[in-house]
């Protein structure tokens, strides 16, 4: 049986699939897509403004956030230079909302950051470790997953007695299981791909493989999910303050302000809605930016 195969020299390449000058890594292409997404860019700018305003509050805010005034209580919009009026103790509302962003943003971002690190690491461990490690971690997470998030946050911070630190612990515990699941799923998908075996065949140890080959592939999904949690975290944290489980007065915090101003809705109703509007706007911005990030990152390569 005569058998011939077309013989060409090895350097004869099949036609090139791409123009040579367009070499783009994953993160570069994500950045490229984000740069061309005006909606995400716009709301990202708004978030940036809110954050900058919170950081530079002492220079921006027109008044002292703690200065009370007996004669200036619950005044309407524009009263004597108070752009959006004053609160129940006569403090400038705009000033307090600008300052309030500090705690509210912190409580939105910090628990998500903690949960991303802890949940992400646990998920990678569960996804890459043995079956027993996986069972222990994931079944524990399932238990915490079995609580509605608001309930778990309230339960933990309620039992621990409120305050910023306890609220942060509670919210971190709320978000950790979800991030752990995402991270475990992503890791389990990656670990079965051939390039992990190829890396092992190259003689690399588990830690090296995790660092070079797993991390880069699971950070994307983890980050996408974490970004969608920021808005939830802001809502939940403000909710805890609203219930009296967050910041203690007189610190300015959006949820707490909403809760105390609520007593005055019959005096000057629309003033009372202002801190909530701040929560709403911030939360919507984070949600839209997160949607944009997801659209830019969620591509199979």
């Amino acid at each position, binding site marked *: *049986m005569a*058998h011939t*195969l*077309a*013989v*060409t*020299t*090895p*350097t*004869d*390449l*099949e036609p090139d*699939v*791409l123009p*040579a000058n*367009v*070499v*783009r*890594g*994953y993160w570069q292409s994500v950045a490229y897509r984000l740069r061309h997404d005006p909606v995400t860019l716009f709301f990202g700018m708004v978030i940036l403004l809110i954050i900058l305003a919170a950081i530079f509050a002492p220079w921006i805010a027109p008044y002292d956030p703690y200065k009370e005034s007996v004669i200036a209580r619950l005044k309407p919009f524009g009263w004597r230079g108070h752009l959006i009026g004053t609160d129940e103790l006569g403090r400038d509302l705009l000033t307090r909302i600008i300052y309030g962003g500090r705690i509210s943003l912190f409580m939105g971002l910090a628990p998500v950051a903690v949960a991303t690190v802890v949940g992400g690491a646990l998920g990678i461990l569960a996804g890459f470790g043995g079956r027993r490690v996986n069972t222990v971690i994931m079944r524990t997470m399932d238990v915490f997953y079995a609580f509605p998030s608001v309930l778990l946050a309230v339960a933990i911070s309620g039992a621990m007695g409120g305050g910023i630190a306890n609220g942060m612990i509670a919210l971190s515990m709320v978000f950790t299981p979800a991030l752990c699941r995402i991270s475990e799923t992503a890791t389990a998908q990656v670990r079965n*791909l*051939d*390039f992990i*075996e*190829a*890396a*092992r*065949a*190259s*003689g*690399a140890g588990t830690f*090296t493989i995790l660092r*070079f*080959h797993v991390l*880069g*592939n699971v950070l994307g999904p983890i980050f996408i999910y974490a970004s969608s949690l920021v808005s939830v975290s802001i809502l939940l944290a403000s909710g805890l303050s609203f219930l009296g489980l967050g910041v203690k007065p007189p610190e300015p915090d959006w949820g707490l302000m909403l809760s105390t101003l609520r007593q005055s809705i019959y005096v000057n109703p629309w003033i009372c809605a202002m801190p909530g509007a701040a929560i709403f706007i911030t939360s919507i911005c984070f949600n839209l930016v997160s949607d944009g990030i997801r659209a830019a990152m969620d591509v199979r*390569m």
Partner: protein
Amino acid sequence: MQIQPLPDDDLDPRDRGGQAQPLLIVEGLRKFFRVKTQDGKPAAVKAVDDISFTVFKGETLGVVGESGCGKSTLARLLMHLIEPDYGTLIFDGEAVDSPDGITVDTLRQQLQMVFQDSYSSLNPRMPVRDSVAFGPLVHGKTREQARAVAKDMLTKVGLNPDLFGPRYPHELSGGQKQRVNIARALAISPRMVILDEAVSALDKSVEAQVLNLLRQLKRSFSLTYLFISHDLNVVQYISDRVLVMYLGRVVELGPVEDIFSRPKHPYTQALLGSRSSMDPARRLEEPPITGDPPSPIDPPSGCRFRTRCPYAEAVCAAEMPELSTWRDRESHVTACHMQNSASGHSLADVMGRA
């Protein structure tokens, strides 16, 4: 007795046993995977069941068989990517993973593997030159040295390192990706490479290019190949000897010309018969074998091929045929009762003498 010195250019400093020592001896290799059947009972998939063979220095041993016959498991067992249940690997005279032999790490510096799926065998978040450089880096080279090796290797597999090195896998075609995979395997200068369906996913024209590249690389690096494929034409083209697997066992082993011109085992005959012919006059009217192979969870008693074998008799169900003993590269052996005149098979005398 005096040892003949080999010519300098053929002498690999890592060579220990000389040309006569086979590079890889596999003895009694076995791997069962524990699974659960549909009704929840524990069972074992007999993926690789008591396999023995030898790979000589400088040759290409082709491994053929239907999908699911345990070819890929065999490759992973040889690389120690999965632990064998039983069996010994002897690499150039040294037992692998044994106290008085070499470690798995040492083995992996001399034995490398090219994977089938060029899509998932490269890290999608890494420029391909880093994928190639990863092996040398792990083995203690500095970043610059590893980059230099990667550059060199990419050139050797026919890719311009400046053009292709910084690219990501999704920016390469299937053939280019497989070239990168080959470069990665060769980057830590192994002595033997396992090619697990390395060209199977490629277009025919690209396949031919990569096959020729493999032949050329084998020459210039004095490599030994274990070439796994389900494609008989490709195996015939590239192999010196061929091993035929069926349901986790070796059914036939011999030099490529013998296997392809005078196949002994009915399974090998059927496999060869099922090849599509370029000649319309030789078109098959009936398929030589029908149906799917039986489940490896509960393989047939005796000879595993008997359920599809046209010559099956009582002895085939009762006794498992053993691979006849072989001596050297030229041996052509098979595991079939018809080839053993003492087996009691009615065709044993006729076939055995033929």
